[in-house]
């Protein structure tokens, strides 16, 4: 009943043999051992499973793995480059944007997409952008601060990034 699916995950080509009904979230976790992507609900509300699919934030529980055939996928494990944390990872750390950490990978991936679309989001725009990502620990305030801080860093480091 399984079929092969080949994905580009964090820069590497990975093939898994999966049931057609398998969700991308499950395949990332169970077949590709990328357990940084978490599953916090079964109705696509919580956003803990958010990854980048071809550069856009996608709740990986809303997608069958077979639908992602050939896609470029970035998970939280692939965000740091050459051992250097992404500006958002640093900012979440710096601003105490996480407590239990369970929502954090999905929250960060959503924020990566937000900042790619909007380099200078207002607080209201940030709160709107992450409303599909639930956090039960932080009350969101420091998450917002972290995303604002990362936006500032990214604008300073790579002004061209916003346009790309």
């Amino acid at each position, binding site marked *: 009943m399984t079929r092969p699916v080949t994905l580009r995950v964090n820069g590497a080509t990975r093939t898994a043999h999966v*049931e057609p009904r398998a969700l991308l979230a499950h395949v990332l976790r169970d077949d590709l051992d990328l357990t940084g992507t978490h599953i916090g609900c079964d109705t696509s*509300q*919580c956003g803990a499973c958010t990854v980048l699919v071809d550069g856009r934030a996608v709740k990986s529980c809303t997608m069958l793995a077979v639908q992602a055939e050939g896609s470029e996928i970035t998970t939280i494990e692939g965000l740091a480059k050459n051992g250097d*944390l992404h500006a958002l990872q640093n900012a979440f750390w710096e601003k105490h944007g996480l407590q239990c950490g369970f929502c954090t990978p999905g929250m960060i991936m959503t924020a990566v997409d937000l900042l790619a679309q909007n380099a200078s989001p207002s607080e209201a725009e940030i709160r709107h952008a992450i409303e599909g990502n*639930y956090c039960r620990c932080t009350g969101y305030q420091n998450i917002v601060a972290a995303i604002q801080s990362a936006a500032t860093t990214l604008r300073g480091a790579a002004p061209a990034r916003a346009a790309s």
Partner: protein
Amino acid sequence: MPTLFGSGIKRREDPRLITGQATYTDDVKLPGLVYAAVLRSPYAHAKVRKVDVKAAKAAPGVLAVYTGADIKDRVVPVPCAWNVPNCDLKVPPHPLLAHEKVRYVGDGVALVVAESRAAARDALDLIEVDYEPLKAVTDPEAAAKPGAPQLHADVPNNLAFTWVVAGGNADEAFAKAEVKVALRIVQQRLLPTAMEPRAAVASYNRGTGQLTLWVTSQNPHIHRFLCSVMLKLPEHRVRVIAPEVGGGFGSKIPCYADEVLACLASMDLNRPVKWTEDRSENYQATIHGRDHVEYVEMCGDRDGTITGLKTKVYAGLGAYASTAAPGVPTILHGLMYSGAYTIPNIHGTVHGVYATATPVDAYRGAGRPEATFLVERLVDTFAREIGKDPIDVRRKNFIKKEQFPYTVATGVAYDSGDYHGTLDKALGMLDYQAFRAEQEKARKQGRYLGLGISTYTEICGIGPSAVAGAVGFGGGLYDSAVVRVYPTGMVRVYIGTSPHGQGEETTFAQIVADEFGYPVESVEIVHGDTESTPQGWGTYGSRTTAVGGIAVVLAARRVKEKAKKLVAHLLEANEADIEWKDGAFVVRGSPDKKKTFAEAALMANVAWNMPAGMEPGLEATAFFDPTNFVYPFGAHLCTVEVDAETGVVKILRYIAVDDCGPQINPMIVEGQVHGGVIQGIGEALQEIAVYDAQGQLLTGTMMDYAVPRASQMPRIETGHTVTPTPVNPLGVKGIGETGTIASAAAVVNAVVDALSPLGITHIDKPLTPARVWAAIQHAKGNGGGR
């Protein structure tokens, strides 16, 4: 040298969490792993006539199927671990899998173990259960009425207990009082919603007879104890590991049937077994919180003096008595009826009631939010009745700073406080007079602005073990730490508490590094594995720092004391002449004769030159049992605008001034306040678990249960004062629950204040637009009201 205590350093937990390298329970994989799934009752109340598992057993990949009848003689029912005395508590058996009757939607009926998650889930659909549905009742007040459906054979009227707290003479106070006010308050059922659902990975080794259980636990030592009881396994053969845990809020205190069933299956199959709930299952099968129907009264004089308080509470327990459930609406609730005030006459009656709903247990604040809510609502109602400013009434009745320690009418002794101080600070942050002027102006324009006040105190840092024993808690409430210093001077600290987001890997390292004159990086905090950590009682009741943290500092000081003796010997000086200066042991008057802590650690570990009678090595264990609870306090202010056309409540400002004593890491303290307050605002404005008349959970998924989202929630303005507790040597109290304890009352008081010109005196939370709108229509005489 500067201390780490008091410094808001970045968390040491975070690098693994922000890179996806952390290991939560469901991330654990073992060779030969198989998967379990639980079949849950679709009925709230039904007789189980027959469970046919033939087809499931024959399904591809299925390794085993268990029913309640299969296992009932092999395991001990799920114990209740808080048997509150003097209240005629009735704890009916709570089978791991229901076999005669199911008592709530979600009650476990069968367990399937299969080669894959999907195969296990698929096989659930092949189990045929013949149910005979019975009538359901989920509301605790309704469940206690004569004629209500009866859940348990030996619990007439579903009454689990009747607990009374009394001090002074409330009847006399009410008879004499100039003013009496009364409210009926419903403190709705809530779904704790830790972002990580529960999970368990059980691995039994037949060769060694050892069971290892990775589990989403706030208290692995309690899990080990309860697993050993339920499985009838010797306790020393059970190892429990709480790896990374994605939030708990009380819901991961209990040791649940499904976690133990995974163990049983692993023992039978000789293979590791993983069980992970999904969110819908979590909402049915993981404990709920609150669920009170309360009749409360306050009396006093026209000058604003409060003289008495009475309550009659129906506290829903759900279908069974969960682990700590009887203690939550009694000890953690009724003993706090005096709030921050000198109320001389108190009488409270709490009826614990079984109903055909998910069991209710400790949820962030656990009994104390309910107490704060009813007291703070009554104080506001009383103030309005006598036409006085609720601020003035609070000030008049506060326990004064110089009165501490102060024993309230319920009998508990508050350790310390400065309630005027936090209130004054919060009012300053708000600019109280300016807000009242703005409110007045707005009212003239037909706009509804309101201010809500919640001046809370709470009981936490639980607590003395002797008190635990006296109030029927089935364990100790001390905690423990081992400080182990390696030859290079690096330090590992093993703790009995089990943080899961609160940041004690950082704050405890700050404490220890300060003791040894170290950078924080030289200290590692280890928790969560019963194999390496000393006996401890877990993380709940805001006790980790106030109890576990003290064990850490005591163990560190023991180690340092030994190092000092060794240094005196090595430097051929009198111990009395050795002083700790700038991060080193120095001979007084001879600044060149000194040794760092790391140098002492090396010499202790190699033991080449020890003083007579001193053992080699450098480590110490400490158990700390506090002499009292601690009582953090604060003043929360909330301002709102209510749209009278739509009933929408908009929070304008939320100010939280809290006093948890000295703060080890202010950044982490503030984070705890933010999260706690938002959880309380969720409770005040939008969260409610709803059952229909048949006992179906209508808010059974995240689509229906209104977890607060970023776009819905306000910014929190924080402030603090510092009143150290005399109960422990660091003076520290708890901060994990204060936000939730304080905030629901502040928000609801604000909305009632806003709508008071309409004559509205109370609206039950959550204050959804529909409820607020209905209350407004009712007040305006438009019908369709509440």
